[in-house]
């Protein structure tokens, strides 16, 4: 599903140039669950930005579903992203002014789904995440675990082929963290590809494969399943 080859990304300030990704190459197959690990500053987040089509690489190749997307402009990337990628963030990033239902509904509005269909799909996914009873609450009225469930619900409501999770349990206690990991496993078993950045060895063990990075390069790759 994803093939990256000699991917490069630099950050330039007036005086220094930092290499965030240094000729990084790997593949992720459809239905896989891959964990990416490494110390702070090793390039994980940069990688996730590029894989999530939020950012453009400075060099190398990036194929998404066989299509070369490196060099796509923002509009084209947004189009591709809208239908194929769901995001789960460490800090949930729910919109404070919207209720649980409305937060989850948002991606469907942007993809132009009709209201009746939206309602059906949002209710389905809320049911699946077991937060239907909270549908009219605002994010600040929920616990961290519940907020992350809503975030996951929002990420999957459009049935994306790929979910990118950035430290999804980073702000949660172990019980809530495990619940979120279980949700991701369920999604993966239902066929969704998941790429997760994490610092947690415990969480990484849920994945099929762990890619470890250092200074923008892949150092090891452990296959768990």
């Amino acid at each position, binding site marked *: 599903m994803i093939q990256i080859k000699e991917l490069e990304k630099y950050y330039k300030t007036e005086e220094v140039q930092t290499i965030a990704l240094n000729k990084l190459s790997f593949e992720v197959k459809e239905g896989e669950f891959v964990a990416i690990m490494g110390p702070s500053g090793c390039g994980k987040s940069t990688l996730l930005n590029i894989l999530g089509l939020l950012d453009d690489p400075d060099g190398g190749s990036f194929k998404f579903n066989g299509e070369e997307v490196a060099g796509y402009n923002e509009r084209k990337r947004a189009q591709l992203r809208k239908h194929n990628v769901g995001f789960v963030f460490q800090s949930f990033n729910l919109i404070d*002014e919207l209720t649980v239902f409305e937060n989850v509904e948002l991606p469907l509005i*942007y993809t132009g789904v009709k209201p009746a269909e939206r309602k059906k799909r949002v209710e389905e996914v809320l049911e699946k995440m077991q937060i239907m009873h909270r549908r009219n609450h605002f994010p600040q009225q929920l616990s961290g675990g519940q907020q992350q469930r809503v975030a996951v619900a929002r990420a999957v409501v459009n049935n994306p082929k790929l979910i990118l999770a950035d430290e999804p349990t980073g702000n949660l206690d172990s019980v809530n963290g495990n619940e979120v990991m279980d949700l991701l496993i369920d999604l993966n078993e239902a066929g969704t590809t998941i790429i997760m950045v994490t610092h947690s060895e415990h969480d990484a063990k849920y994945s099929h494969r762990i890619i470890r990075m250092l200074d923008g390069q892949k150092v090891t790759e452990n296959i768990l399943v």
Partner: protein
Amino acid sequence: MFKNYLKIAWRSLKTNRLFSIINILGLSVGLTTALVLFLFIMQEHSYDKMYANKNKIYRVLLNTTDEDKETWANSPSIIAPELKSKIPEISKAGRILKNNFGETAFVRVKKGVFAEEKLFWCDASIFEMFDIEIVKGTGGENLNNPNTVLLSESAASLYFGNENPIGQTLIVDNRNRFEVKGVFKDFPENSSLDFNVVTPFMMQNAAKNPTWDNASFETFVLFNSNTPNVANVESLIQNIVDANVKKEDQWYNFSLQALEDIHLYSASISDSYLTDIGDVKQIQNLSALAILILIIACINYTNLITARSQKRAMDVGVNKTLGASKGNLIKRFYIETGLITAIAMLLGVVLVTVVLPIFNNIAQKNINISALFTFEILGFLMLIWFVTTLISGSYPALYLSKFSPKEVLKPTRGKAGVTSYIRKGLVVVQFSASIVLIISVMIIHQQLKFIKNKDLGYNPENIIAISISGIRDGEANKALVNAFERLTNVSAVTRSQGYPGIGVSGRTIGKPNSNESLNIQTNRAEYNIGNVLQFNLLAGKLLPKIKHPKDTLVEVVVNKKVVDFLELTPEEAIGKRVDMSLGNNAFITGVVDNFNFESLHSPIGAYAFHNRRSEAKSFLLVRFQNEILSETISNFEAAFKSVATNSAFEYTFLDKNIERLYKKEQLTANVGLLFSIIAIFVACLGLFALAAFMAEQRNKEIGIRKVFGASVMRIISLLSVDFIKLILMSLVISFPLALYFMNNWLQDFAYRISISWSVFLIAGVLAICITFLTVAYQAIKAAISNPIKSLRTE
């Protein structure tokens, strides 16, 4: 999607109460100001639009050709019949004359005597030209017959109550008796013409024997067509003048002014009987101020939204990762701004109902609240809503929607630099505008104070001018002077045609053996005029105390300007014959120092007191000692009534009358003050919110500084100093601007203050104090908070 945006906007308003309140309040104050001024401007522009012939009616203006180059609204009485008979494009012409050349009339009816300010002698054609509606009796045609009178509805009800006014009698100035023939509808508020009592102009001498000399009659003409060739007609008028007046006697030429221009474009035209005159310059200034305040309010909005851009960046980022396009987000921000502006607008409309009476009071206007509910205003509201949304919303919409979704994953602070510069720039713009206003208001007040305290060359304090034009009997007049002289706190009494501050007679004085002439104001007076007005006699003596009725000698007391023109010293001038339409027997007997008989806008001109029986002495001038008390006034009234039983006691104080000359400036000062307060209030609202935001943003920094030992004072100055720097910058920008504007404004005065540096110092200190007080609350709050809290939240 629209509903969704609206929902987010509404909830975001509710969550961020402080910011929302400040935003809405600031905008609504700005909008209220704009609305009130729009109502005012609309009313000013609506003058004389109600007349069916509005495009065909013109007023004849007289332009003097001497060095003063004045424009008068009054023309010689012959102009009207000449133009009507000799210019085919003109179908009607009519003259108006305010009673006794601009004086209050005394109207006696069965019920008593009334002082009537709006009695006009009119040609019948005026009623036809202006389609004045008759509600009772017959109309303007009555003015072709002598001793007929037409009354306004309110005058009829004042004089006759519920009785039928038609056929009733009224006596004007104890001289003429009139029969009421008709009642016309009161003139609307926005009509330049406004009569209460109309008597036939044909009874005036000037109608019976029209001349080219006495230019005291306001003349209107009606063209046949809606689009007259004005320039062509003006040249035809010149031909008529050339045919009738010798070249050397032509001290004037004529031009035409459209009726629709009379209200707004007559500020510099003198000698008009129409008093409700606006000023297009004032409208322009007020419009500029309204726009300025609205911009300040819009800047607040932009500043507050972008100040919170970090939170917004996250919002935008999330929405973009979820598939929102830039266009979606631009729409969203505009909708949010539109919502806030709409709320502010509604609040503004409510505020207008509260503010309008106050504005009416300050601006001396009578704008009705119902004017708010018209299609024009609705259109204006829509327009201003749109414009405000566009101005306030564009920067947030275009700037924030550009945020990359990457910000969500790793918020960067790099871009804050640019926005913070823009934000600071906007604060500087706001405060520069406010400081310009503060300085302007201070200078206007200083100039007004200067006017009030300036030595005018005579002493206008403690003088009362009582109108005696209703007393026809010479003996009664003498008895009146005696009655006042007997009063204990009266030091001098005299009768005169007029007094400094009001127009008297305009003549020209010629220089012997030369073609040169000079406009001169002449005032028929008596010997005691010097004791009443207390001016400085330079040479000779004042008018003689006793004047035999058969004595044809005319004594003239001139001011220094006249002897300067004649190239004589005051002493040399004594005994010299003067050529100034006072007969062949007029001699200078005295010279007084120059005094300001007009407003300080004009330099001192030529003035003369004389004792020729050419004009009526309409005023009793009484100099009294001590301060005036209501008891003194009652004594004056009793003395007046003891002689003039059939006249109303109508008086004015000379110093109060002088204040009236500066009504426009006083108004500018009042309105300016109001606007400055509003502008500063709105700017401070923005500053307050910005300070709150800055304190919040620097929370962590403050915490760290405190942990390492910074004192509360240090933190306060840390947070305040940035703002003070901005204000200093504003001062640098605003000082030259204010200097430029106010120098221009002062040019209108012949006598003016020089702008002092202290004004700038005071304005600067004031601006810094206001800023500090606004910012200090937030700074202190941040400085005394527990550092552990701020560090923990990070």
